[in-house]
C-alpha cells in the first residue's frame, strides 16, 4: 500500500559509517599537517567528497532511493562544479 518501499538501515551499519567518517576526519587533519603544497587542497577536498558520499548514501539513504533522485543529486554537484570552473575561466586568465 504505502509506496515508499522503505529500506531500513541497521544500527550496525550506521555505526560503521560513523567510524569510517571519523577515520577520514583524522585523515584530513593529519594529511594537511604535512605540507603537500598545492596538493593539500585537492586531497582535503577529495576526502571531504568521500565523506559527503557516505553521508549522502547511507545517512540520507540515497543508496536505496530510485535512480532518478540519485541522478538529480549528482547533477546538482556537476552544475555547481561547472559554475565554479567557468568563473575560474575569468579569474585564472586575468
Amino acid at each position: 500500500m504505502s509506496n515508499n518501499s522503505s529500506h531500513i538501515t541497521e544500527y550496525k551499519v550506521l555505526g560503521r559509517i560513523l567510524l569510517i567518517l571519523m577515520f577520514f576526519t583524522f585523515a584530513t587533519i593529519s594529511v594537511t599537517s604535512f605540507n603537500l603544497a598545492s596538493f593539500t587542497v585537492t586531497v582535503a577536498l577529495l576526502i571531504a567528497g568521500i565523506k559527503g558520499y557516505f553521508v549522502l548514501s547511507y545517512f540520507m539513504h540515497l543508496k536505496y532511493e530510485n535512480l532518478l533522485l540519485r541522478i538529480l543529486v549528482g547533477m546538482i554537484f556537476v552544475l555547481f562544479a561547472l559554475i565554479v570552473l567557468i568563473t575560474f575561466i575569468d579569474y585564472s586568465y586575468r
Partner: protein
Amino acid sequence: MSNEVNKIEYVSYLEHQGRFKGLKSWIFATDHKRIALLYMYAIAAFFFIGALLGLLMRFELIAPGETIMKAQTYNGLFTVHGVIMIFMVVIPGLSAVFGNFFLPILIGAKDVAFPRLNLFSWWIFVFGSVLAVASQFLKSGPPDTGWTFYAPYSTTTGTSVIIATTAAFILGFSSILTGLNFLVTVHQMRAPGMKFFNMPLFPWAIYATAWIQLLATPIVGITLLMLIAERLFGIGFFDPNLGGDPVLFQHLFWIYSHPAVYIMILPAMGVITEIVPTFCQRKVYGYKAIALSSLAIAGVGFLVWGHHMYTSGMSENARWFFSLLTFIVAVPSAIKVFNWISTMYKGSIDLKPPFLFALAFIFLFIIGGTTGLILGSVATNIQVHDTSFIVAHFHYIIFGGMGFAFFAAIHYWLPKMYGRLYNFRRANIACIIMFIGFNTLYFPQFVIGIQGMPRRYFDYLPQFQTGHMISTIGGVILIFGLFYMLINLIKGARKGPKAPANPWNGSTLEWQIPSPPSLENFDEPFEVKANPYDYK
C-alpha cells in the same frame, strides 16, 4: 445526501463554499485555481504601478534637460520600475498564474502537490512586494542602484537599498517554493498512466522553468544576503574599500539573473505552443523537439551569464567562452519558432484574439531574440552594452515576448477561468493598437542605442531627441491599447456571455471539463491518451 454518494453535483470553483466566506475564502484558499487568480490580481496591480513609473520616465526623456523630475527621482524610478517588473511581474507572471491554474488540470490532477505551501508562497510574494513598493516611499529615498544592484555603488549609496534587496530576497524565496511545488506536482501528481511524454507542452515548459527557479534563485539569494551583510556589518565581499571585488558581485548576480530571463520566457513559449495548434486545428509539429528544447534552454542557459559582463575587464578567454555559449543557446529558441510556424502549415486557421496575440508574440520575439545575437557577439556588444539598445532588446523580448504571451494566455483561457466570453472584435483591435504602440515605443531605442545613447541617463545629448520623442509617443499609444484591452477583458469576465466548455474546439485536457472547472477539476473519470492533443 446518503443516496448521492456516487453522483457529485457540479459546482464551479468560483462558487464552491469552503470553510470561509467572502474575501477570506480567497486569501485563505488552498485551491490552485483561486491562488492563480490571487496571483493574477496582485501581479496586474504591480504591473500597473511599474508601467506607470515607466511612463513617467518616458515623459522625463521626451526632451533633453530636466523635464518633469529631478535626476535623483529618475534614478529611483528606473530602479523601482526594474525591480517591480522583473521580480514581481515577469518572474512569477506566467508560471504563478497560468502554471498554477492549468498545470494540475493539464496533467489530470486535482491540485498541486502542496496546496498550503502554494498559498504560503503567495503570501510571501505579497509581503515581499509590499516591501519593495514601500522602499519607494521611505525617508532615505527610493533605492537608486538599478535593478542590478551593482557593487560598490549599492554598498555605499545612502538610499534604502537594504529594504529593496531584502524584498528581492523574499520574492526569491516565494519563487523557489513555487518552483519546488510544481516540480513535485509534475513528478508525483500526473494522472495514473500519464508518462512525461504524454504531457502537453505547457507543463513541459513549466517543468523546465521550475528547475531554473529552484536552482538559480538560491545564488541570487546568497548574493543579496552578502550585500546586506556588507551594508549592515561592514563585512567585506564586494566593496574594494573593504577588500572585496566588485566584478565578483556581477558574476554572482548574473549566475542567477541570466537563467532568470529564461524563467520569464519559457512559460511564454509554452503558452504559444498551446495556442498555435488550437487555432490551426492541427497537432503541434515537432512535439519532442519542442519539449527537449525547453530542457536544453534551461540547461545551457545556466552557463552563459558572462555575456552581461563583456566590458567589465573579464579575461579574454572568458569573453569568447561566454560568447560562444550564448550563441549556442539561441538555437533551441530558433527550433521552437520553426516548429510553431510549421504547425500553421496546412492548418485551418481561425484568427481569434489569442492567435493574433500569438502571432504578435512570434514577430516581436524574433526581433528581441535576434538583437540578442547582436549583444552576444563580443565586438558589437562593446558598442551597444549599457545603451538603450539593451533597453530595447529586453523590452522587446520581455514585454513583446512574455507580455504579449501573457495577453495571449489570458485571452485563451479566460473563458475557462471565468466561464465567460469577451468581445473578440475589440480584443483584436486592442492587440493591433498595442502592437503599433509597442514598436513605436521601442524601435527608436535600437537606433539611438547604436548611435551611443547610454542607458540610465536622466539627461542626454540633443542628437538623440527625435528618437526619444517618437518613443514617448509610442508609449502613449501603447497605454491606450492596454486600457482598451483591459476594459474589454474585465467586462467579459464579469458580464460576458456564458462560455461553453470548449469554445475554441481545443484538443487538450482542460477543454474536457466544464467552464469554470469544479473544485477538484475532474468530477468524471477520464481516459489518459498517449497523445496529449487527442482529447476531443
